[in-house]
C-alpha cells in the first residue's frame, strides 16, 4: 500500500483534474509530490458538485467544459503512477460518473491505472456493499468521509469500511478556505480514533485547511492534512506554465 504518512503531519493534495488542463494537472501533481505531498487526490470534475464551495465548483465547471472525463483522469493517474511509483494516489469523485462507467469496470480501471484508493463524495457506508466488494477484489482502499455530525455508531461503520485513511471533515459545510481550523475537528478526530486505532488506520483532516499554521494545528491531533480549495484557488490565479512551480513552493512551505 503506497498510502502512508512518513512525516507528521502528512499532506494530502487535492487537485481538480483537467483544470486548467490534464497535462498541467500532471505537472502540478509531480511538483506537489516532489515538494512533500504524501498523497495526491485527483478530483474527477462533475457537473453538479453539491458538496463543494465556489472555488472547486468553478474549477469543476472549467474542466467539464473542456470535456474532461473520468477515463481521462484515470489516464492521467496512470502517467503519474509511472513517473512516481511510490506516491499515494487516490481518485476523488462524485458517484454518477462512476455509476455511468459501472462499478465493476471503475474498480478494475482504477486498479489498472495503479491508483491506491478512491473516495466517492456521495457514497455512504450503508449503500456501499457492491462498491466495497469490488474495491476489495481489486486490493484497493475505499476512503470514507467522517463528519462532525456523524454519531459514534456511524463513525464505527466508517472506520471499519475504510482503508488507507479516513477523511475527517473539519467542520459542517462545503469545501472552501477559512480563517482557522474549526474546533469541531479535534473533537471529531478524538471520537473517530476510538474506532480507527484498532485497525491502525490514519486520519486525515480536510475542509478549510489552507496554510502552514492550519497544517501545524491539524498535526497536533491528526495524522495528515488535506489541502484542497487553497490549491485549486492558487492554480486558478496562476498562469498554466507557472502553476507547477508555484504549487511546489506552496506545498514546500506548508511544513515550514
Amino acid at each position: 500500500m503506497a498510502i502512508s504518512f512518513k512525516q507528521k503531519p502528512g499532506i494530502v493534495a487535492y487537485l481538480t483534474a483537467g483544470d486548467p488542463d490534464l497535462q498541467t494537472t500532471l505537472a502540478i501533481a509531480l511538483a506537489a509530490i516532489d515538494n512533500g505531498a504524501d498523497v495526491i487526490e485527483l478530483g474527477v470534475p462533475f457537473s453538479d458538485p453539491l458538496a463543494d464551495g465556489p472555488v472547486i465548483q468553478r474549477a469543476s465547471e472549467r474542466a467539464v467544459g473542456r470535456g474532461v472525463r473520468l477515463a481521462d483522469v484515470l489516464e492521467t493517474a496512470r502517467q503519474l503512477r509511472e513517473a512516481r511509483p511510490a506516491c499515494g494516489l487516490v481518485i476523488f469523485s462524485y458517484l454518477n460518473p462512476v455509476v455511468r462507467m459501472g462499478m465493476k469496470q471503475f474498480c478494475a480501471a482504477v486498479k489498472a491505472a495503479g491508483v491506491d484508493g478512491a473516495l466517492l463524495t456521495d457514497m455512504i457506508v450503508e449503500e456501499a456493499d457492491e462498491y466495497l466488494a469490488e474495491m476489495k477484489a481489486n486490493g484497493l482502499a475505499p476512503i470514507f468521509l467522517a463528519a462532525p455530525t456523524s454519531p459514534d455508531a456511524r463513525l464505527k461503520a466508517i472506520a471499519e469500511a475504510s482503508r488507507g485513511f479516513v477523511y475527517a471533515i473539519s467542520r459542517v459545510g462545503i469545501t472552501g478556505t477559512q480563517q482557522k481550523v474549526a474546533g469541531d475537528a479535534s473533537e471529531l478526530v478524538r471520537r473517530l480514533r476510538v474506532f480507527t486505532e484498532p485497525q491502525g488506520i490514519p486520519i486525515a483532516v480536510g475542509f478549510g485547511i489552507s496554510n502552514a499554521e492550519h497544517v501545524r494545528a491539524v498535526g497536533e491531533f491528526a495524522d495528515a492534512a488535506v489541502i484542497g480549495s487553497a490549491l485549486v484557488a492558487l492554480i486558478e490565479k496562476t498562469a498554466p506554465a507557472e502553476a507547477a512551480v508555484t504549487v511546489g513552493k506552496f506545498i514546500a512551505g506548508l511544513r515550514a
Partner: protein
Amino acid sequence: MSVTAPLRTKADSAAGVRAGRFGVYGGRYVPETLMAALEELEQAYAVADADPAFHAELDGLLHHYCGRPTPLYFAKRISEQLGGAKIYLKREDLLHTGAHKINNALGQGLLARRMGKQRIIAETGAGQHGVATATVCALFGMECVIYMGEEDMRRQELNVFRMRLLGAEVRGVGAGSATLKDAINEAMRDWVTNVRDTYYILGSALGAHPYPTMVRNFQRVIGREARAQMLEQEGRLPSAIVACVGGGSNAIGAFYEFLCDKDVRLVGVEAGGRGTALGEHAARFQQVGGGLPGVLQGTYSYVLQNDAGQVATTHSVSAGLDYASVGPEHAMLHDSGRAEYTSASDAEALAATSALARTEGILPALESAHAVAEAMKMAPKMAKTDVILVNLSGRGDKDMGILAKEMDLRGATPQRDGTL
C-alpha cells in the same frame, strides 16, 4: 449507449425491499455531513406519521386554510369538442397559493415545527413550491430562504415578488443552466452548512430517503379524494389518470391510490421541450436521447446525462418540469410498466393552455398544461364511455409573462377582440 448494472446493496438482494428503495431506485447518496440529519428526519417523520394529532392538525389546515377537498370537475365542453372520453379535472389549481405544492409544504412545515427547527430552506423551479413554503413559514412564524435559478427568477418573476412579499428571502443561483437542478444543489450546500438548525423542505418526490416517500405521502390526498369523488360522480374508476411529471410529486400523489387498480392506466407526461436531442427537453423516459439510471442529488433514478456521467442541461417552457432527473418511484413504475410515460412539447403545452382557457374558462399552469395536452391527444381515440382524470396541478396566473412572450414569438397572441 448501454445501461450499466444498477447499484446493488446486500439488503436489496437479501430482503428484496428496503426502506427508501423503489425497486432498485431511490436510496441515499449524500455527503456524510447530512446523514445524521436524514436519520433524524426519518425518525421524526415516522413518529409524526403514526400520531393521529399530527394528521388531525394537517387535515384541519388543509381544509380550513387551503380549501381541501378540491373539486373534481367534469370538463364537459372540451370533452364534447374532442368527441371521445369524458375528461375530469382534479382542481388542485384552486388550492391556496395556486398549486398542489402546499399539501407537502404544510406537512413538512408542521414536521419542522415539531422538530423545533426555526430556519427553513427550500428550492423552487416555477416558484410554486417556493411560494407554498414562504406561505407556511409566514403562517408558522419561521425564517425562510428560497433558492431559485436565475433563469427561473426571470421567467417566473411574479412568484419571486410573491415570495418576498410573504417575507421570504429569495437567493438567485447562477450556476449551470440556472434552473431547478442548480437551485437544489445550492439548497443542499446551505443545508450541509447549517444542518444543525435548518430544515430543508424539498418540494418534489426526489432526493435522499425519506424525502421521496414523505413527499408522496403528503401528496396522496390528491388521489384519495379523486378516487372517492370519481366513484360518487361516475360510479366507476377512471380509465386513465394523466399528470405532468417534473420531479413527479403531483403525479405520484394522483397515481398512488390507484396503483392496485390494474385497469386504471397511469400516464405521466414529461416536458418534450423543443426537440428530442439531449439538452432540448426534460423527457427522462424518452427512448432515444432520454435518461439513463444514475445518481443525482441524493437518489438513484433516471438522469439525463452524457456517456461520461455529466448531467445534461434541459429545456422546457415550463420551469416546474425543467429538471434532469425524476423521482425514483416513477423510475420503478416506468420499468415495471405499471405507469406509462410520454411527453408534450412546448408548443403542445401552449396550445393546450389556450384550448382549456377558451372552452372551460380555466387557465392551467404551463406544467399542468402538459397533462392537458396529453389528455387532448388521448380522448378522441377513446370511447365516449371512457373517463380520463387529469390532475390539474396548478393554475396559470404565474405564467402570464411567459405566455405573452411565447405566444408573441409564435404569432399566436390573442387579438384585441379576443380572437386568435
